[in-house]
């Protein structure tokens, strides 16, 4: 979070663990890791990368899986511990100090081993809510090179109706090596999704033209416009990017209706 109050936030992150790295707007350069050519000219890459917010692990921690049991440790720990379910270090007392009396004793766990082999739920330290009719897609950071040691599952949550901890599920892949998670590297990217965008009626409404001879003339005209012309006529690099940004600046599509 940037600390600037927003009048109508699409999404609000509630920091439940004091001192954790706050979410930040996802970055068009993917923290400087994108190739310069892509960052400068590829609007598709930039738009996907900067869509939403990065959320970080609340503490540096390390997991190790032997194919059956998981052990873990964290910054400041003196040893490794078997993982079944664990609170953020020292958090139970913090939660009980700030929560209403009847909620004491109900602090959310930081890490929980799932029954599936290598499955773990990780809580980011934040609660989340979104504006009416907006959900959030919780997914791996877009275009950020991923660790080969684990996979993240993706999930869409109706956070306008469900208020709770922002967590993710991951699956450890590599065995017998320490798998590090750092507060310097985003764990997930949270993206706002209007419910209408992923409604079944939209996903079920699609068509396939399976033979180029059946393409309508309009499709050929558009192909000429977007692909052929830019290749045969000199044009400045990044013309698509320029047009897309100009369109975006002219108004927010969510409020255009």
């Amino acid at each position: 979070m940037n600390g600037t109050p927003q009048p109508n936030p699409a999404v609000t992150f509630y920091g439940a663990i004091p001192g954790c790295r706050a979410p930040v707007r996802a970055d068009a350069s993917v923290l400087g890791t994108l190739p310069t050519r892509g960052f400068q000219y590829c609007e598709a890459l930039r738009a996907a990368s900067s869509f939403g917010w990065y959320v970080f692990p609340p503490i540096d921690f390390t997991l190790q899986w032997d194919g059956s049991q998981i052990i873990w440790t964290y910054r400041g720990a003196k040893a490794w511990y078997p993982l079944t379910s664990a609170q953020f270090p020292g958090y139970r007392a913090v939660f009980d100090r700030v929560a209403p009396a009847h909620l004491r004793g109900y602090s959310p766990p930081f890490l929980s081993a799932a029954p599936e082999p290598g499955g773990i739920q990780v809580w980011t330290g934040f609660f989340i809510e979104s504006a009416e009719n907006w959900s959030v897609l919780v997914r791996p950071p877009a275009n950020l090179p991923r660790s080969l040691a684990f996979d993240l599952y993706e999930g869409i949550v109706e956070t306008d109706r469900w208020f709770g901890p922002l967590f993710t599920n991951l699956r450890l892949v590599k065995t017998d090596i320490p798998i590090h998670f750092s507060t310097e590297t985003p764990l997930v990217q949270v993206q706002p999704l209007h419910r209408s965008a992923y409604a079944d009626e939209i996903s079920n409404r699609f068509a396939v033209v399976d033979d180029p001879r059946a393409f309508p003339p309009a499709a050929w005209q558009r192909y000429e416009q977007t692909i052929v012309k830019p290749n045969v006529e000199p044009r400045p690099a990044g013309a698509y990017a320029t047009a897309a940004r100009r369109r975006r600046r002219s108004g927010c599509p969510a409020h255009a209706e």
Partner: protein
Amino acid sequence: MSSKKQRVLRKASKKIAKPIVVRARDASTQDSGAIRFGNGSAPAILRK
């Protein structure tokens, strides 16, 4: 092998071979199990 080389090798092997100490319990992360997210960590059939 020179003694300096031996010292360097000994130091390096200590680093590599640092054993993992696993302890049964960490009081500061002890979880009561009162809260689970979503479907939780137990199969639905076992949940009441």
